């Protein structure tokens, strides 16, 4: 009943005795390395202190060759692809492989050096065999709290990196197996929840130790040189795979543009202008015509733009390619420093990873690649991580806590099916934090966590529904912040499909049911990006995530599907008539059915009305 998962056709597709033994051996080695990454990930998940690790799975684990090139990564969070490809590589190059020693661990979170944004910490450790450097293992994980101007460290109104938290350039965290205590003390003193940071950093360290052991096993079998030669072949294979996929695309220049609706500091929007140049077996993503970098934290570091571009590509092509340093060889990303696509120090960029990245990925995927592969086209998804963060003193134990939270949303209707409801933002694949874990960890009580009815972008194939979450403050005071998008511009429909619905962040004071937006309630510049709003016991917050855009004319939707949507409550009876032109007769539980004649007449008049 568990279907076979997909494997790379050229690597494992067919083989018979005596044929392609090397390829089989290579496949096995690659899978083993990826399996090591999975084990490292498992160790991290099992030993974490933050639900964002154990439940959200917001991390990646890496194995790199002795020159620091990525060989394999656990396929957990595609959003970290760019950082996985470069962050460790760059630490190793900046420090110099000769300056590592057995037992060392380096850490950094510098978005100007390959990190995605400050909360994501990267660790890297060398693996030796009899004193000879053989490989590296690494991981990247989002720490829930790293200081800065807002608890939860998603400072949506930051105007420089220094407000976003503690920045650490490549730094030795362990020296020959011993903790560098001064560095630990500096880091922990600057985080609001040091106990949590201590535990999560140790989960990362433990994951590296698991990786060291396992890679050590590989070295014992193959020797340092043998292993690195095989690694080289794995990289070559990935490169060749990508080249053959790109070569199959028609040469040409494809363009598209989209924008970030505001930067939290002013009302202006920032445009991303993209062109993809396909030439033979190589491909260039050129963003040089994009707007200059924003004042607020919606800028992307280089690796974020790279992640989005590559993921847009990988979601369509080369689905089974081994994800490693080989795949970037035929691809170039041009993102000049000082534009919104490559932030220049000291520009803020915490939202680049969560808001800019999905936007640019969907731009690549939905607007540009759909020109080449229309059968893969889909209307827009909700396309925001909808970060909602909070911190305060937990009345249950008197300790300071902080958390950042993201939300699922509706995805867009597709060429042959409806968009799915309540899925995570497309550039990532994190899990939600379940309500039971949420309430055990933090002083909030949920009133509702459900699908947001009657909001999916109408279309022949309907957009998926967003999510509505209502929760009440259980502590005396709680400080909340948000960093989101899709409050001014709706997720777009495609080919006559209607737009999806927008994000909403609302608040009701204790004892009242009168919700208003945070923007109105607190006089904010941006409805979607704000910091440090203080709520009190009994206040309620309502978070509504966007729904996906529709695909095709809603008047062409099969009336039976509209009926089913009404029965399930996804579409109201009113919308069935006014938007889909479907007239229903009877009552629920009493012969509810499509009135065929009335529907046909209504649809005809609606079409004429449009014409």
């Amino acid at each position, binding site marked *: 009943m568990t279907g076979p998962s997909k494997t790379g056709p050229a690597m494992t597709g067919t083989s018979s005795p005596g044929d392609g033994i090397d390829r089989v051996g290579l496949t096995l080695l690659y899978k083993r390395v990826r399996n090591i990454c999975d084990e490292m990930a498992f160790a991290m998940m099992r030993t974490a202190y933050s639900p964002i690790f154990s439940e959200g799975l917001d991390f990646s684990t890496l194995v790199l060759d002795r020159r620091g090139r990525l060989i394999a990564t656990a396929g957990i969070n595609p959003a970290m692809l760019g950082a996985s490809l470069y962050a460790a590589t*760059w630490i190793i190059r900046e420090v*110099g492989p000769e300056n590592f020693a057995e037992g060392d661990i380096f850490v950094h979170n510098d978005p100007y050096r390959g990190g995605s944004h400050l909360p994501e910490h990267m660790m890297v450790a060398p693996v030796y065999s009899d004193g000879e450097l053989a490989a590296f293992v690494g991981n990247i994980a989002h720490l829930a709290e790293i200081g800065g101007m807002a608890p939860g460290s998603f400072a949506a109104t930051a105007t420089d990196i220094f407000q976003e938290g503690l920045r650490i350039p490549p730094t030795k965290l362990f020296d020959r197996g011993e903790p560098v205590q001064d560095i630990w003390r500096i880091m922990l003193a600057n985080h609001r929840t040091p106990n949590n940071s201590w535990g999560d950093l140790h989960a990362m360290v433990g994951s590296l130790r698991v990786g060291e052991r396992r890679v050590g096993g590989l070295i014992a079998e193959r020797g340092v040189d043998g292993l690195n030669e095989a690694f080289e072949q794995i990289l070559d294979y990935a490169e060749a795979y990508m080249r053959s996929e790109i070569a199959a695309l028609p040469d040409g220049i494809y363009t598209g543009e989209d924008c970030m609706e505001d930067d939290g500091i002013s009302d202006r929007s920032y445009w991303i202008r993209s062109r993809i140049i396909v030439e033979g077996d190589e491909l260039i993503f050129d963003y040089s015509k994009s707007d200059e970098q924003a004042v607020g934290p919606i800028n992307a570091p280089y690796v974020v733009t790279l992640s989005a571009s590559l993921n847009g590509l990988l979601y369509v092509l080369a689905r089974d390619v081994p994800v490693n340093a080989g795949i970037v060889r035929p691809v170039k*990303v041009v993102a000049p*420093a000082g534009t919104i696509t490559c932030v*220049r*120090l000291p520009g803020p960029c915490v939202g680049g990873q969560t808001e800019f990245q999905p936007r640019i990925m969907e731009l690549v995927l939905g607007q540009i690649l759909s020109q080449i592969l229309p059968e893969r086209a889909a209307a827009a998804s909700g396309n925001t991580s909808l970060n909602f963060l909070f911190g305060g003193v937990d009345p249950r134990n008197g300790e300071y806590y902080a958390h950042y939270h993201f939300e699922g949303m509706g995805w867009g209707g597709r060429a042959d099916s409806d968009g799915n409801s309540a899925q995570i933002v497309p550039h990532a694949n994190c899990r939600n934090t379940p309500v039971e874990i949420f309430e055990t960890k933090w002083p909030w009580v949920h009133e509702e966590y459900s699908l947001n009815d009657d909001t999916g972008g109408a279309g022949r194939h309907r957009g998926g529904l967003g999510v509505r979450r209502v929760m009440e403050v259980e502590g005396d005071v709680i400080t909340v912040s948000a960093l989101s998008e899709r409050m001014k511009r709706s997720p777009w429909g495609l080919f006559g499909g209607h737009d999806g619905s927008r994000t909403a962040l609302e608040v009701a004071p204790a004892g009242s049911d009168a919700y208003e937006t945070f923007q109105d309630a607190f006089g904010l510049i941006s409805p979607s990006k704000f910091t440090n709003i203080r709520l009190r016991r009994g206040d309620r917050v309502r978070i509504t995530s966007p729904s996906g855009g529709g695909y095709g004319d809603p008047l062409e939707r099969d009336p039976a599907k509209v009926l089913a949507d009404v029965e399930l409550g996804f579409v109201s009876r009113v919308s069935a008539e006014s938007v889909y032109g479907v007239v229903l007769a009877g009552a629920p539980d009493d012969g509810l059915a499509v009135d065929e004649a009335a529907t046909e007449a209504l649809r005809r008049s609606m079409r004429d009305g449009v014409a």
Partner: protein
Amino acid sequence: MAWHELNKNWHDTTVDYCDVCGNLLIARYWSFIEPDGTETRRCCDETCERLFGRLRRLEQSARDS
């Protein structure tokens, strides 16, 4: 048309970017002079120099057509 060391002080924590693609420059960089000008560009390596030429030619042909 040559490699140069970045030679940063140990207490200098700033970073340098490739003039062509925006990627990070580490430890050393490749420099070249624009074919149709005199400006010197700092970039990742020779592939970026070639990329620069390619993008220039594309713009040229877009202008011509």
